[in-house]
């Protein structure tokens, strides 16, 4: 596969190395001349100096025959434009953009970027999993982010303690998958399963229902 990478920073450098060792044909575009020299020494002749948002540069590196363009500069707007130029000027079948501000993922999707990778969101999620007191822990994104698997820990004083799953309703489109009970382990819940304090409830849901789930399972 021929892959064009826009941005030769740390992410671009490591990505290029990995893709090269996987046997792909890779070209990395970098604007900064000093950085280009470093990259050339490390990676050899797969580095081209130029602005990856400029059609002329993309043309010079044969983007027209590229199977994929991956934009990993540290500027969201630059990554968006590189992907759009690749799509609309060179018909690149697949574009991937790094996104720093999680709020930008929506507009990238609307504008036809095939895949967005938001490092900020990944880091936040990993940190959240390590914070014991955090109420809702995101575990897994499903179907490109339209559904999410989350973990809710039943806090002391919650109104669902002592009740069964049959006693209350979950929001539309949200389902309880599993209950992990202290000293017991995973339990497959039924409508008759009673909830205890400190139970970890694993739920599949969408972004809109998280507040409702919070108030149902954690409300006092």
């Amino acid at each position, binding site marked *: 596969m021929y892959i064009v990478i826009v941005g030769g920073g740390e992410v671009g450098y490591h990505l290029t190395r990995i893709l090269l060792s996987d046997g792909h044909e890779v070209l990395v575009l970098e604007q900064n001349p000093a950085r280009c020299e470093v990259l050339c020494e490390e990676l050899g002749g797969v580095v081209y100096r130029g602005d990856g948002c400029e059609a*002329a540069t993309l043309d010079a590196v044969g983007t027209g025959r590229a199977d994929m363009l991956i934009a990993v500069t540290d500027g969201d*707007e630059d990554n*968006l*434009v590189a992907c759009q130029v690749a799509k*609309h000027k060179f018909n690149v079948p697949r574009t991937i953009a790094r996104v720093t501000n999680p*709020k930008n993922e929506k*507009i990238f999707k609307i504008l036809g970027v095939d895949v967005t990778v938001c490092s900020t969101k990944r880091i936040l999620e990993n940190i959240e999993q390590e914070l014991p007191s955090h109420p809702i822990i995101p575990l897994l994104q499903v179907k490109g982010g339209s559904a999410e698997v989350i973990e809710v820990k039943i806090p002391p004083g919650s109104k669902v303690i002592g009740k069964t799953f049959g006693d209350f309703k979950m929001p539309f489109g949200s389902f309880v998958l599993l209950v992990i009970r202290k000293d017991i382990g995973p339990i497959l819940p039924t409508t008759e399963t009673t909830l205890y304090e400190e139970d970890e409830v694993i739920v599949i849901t969408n972004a809109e229902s998280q507040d409702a789930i919070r108030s149902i399972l954690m409300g006092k």
Partner: protein
Amino acid sequence: MKIIIMGCGRVGARLAEALSSAGNDVTIIDTEPFALRKLPEDFKGTALVGNGLAEETLVKAGIESADVFVSCTPGDNRNVMACQIAKHIYNVPKIVSRVYDPIRAEMYRGLGIESVSPTTVIADLLKQKIEG
């Protein structure tokens, strides 16, 4: 008309003043408070410090009820991204962007973003002056 301008450089400030004097409700945004000093003291519109790519700033500027969104920061990519947010997320009816790179300007025109390329305009003007 309610007009939002992103980028208070020479062009942005001048445009804001002209549109405001013509009786429009103008809000101008810049990330740099110092840049807003370019506006005349009797400027009737609103000057706002903030990032025009951020939802908070745009909502504060009143984008949900804006008739026109103009982007004239020095960065082509910032401009077209802001304009596409205005068009596709907030459905602003009229969008105009400054895009220095003529090829990019042409491409975004094709994508429904009215783009003015100073590069082409100025080069043509200078050529006319030279040739008399």
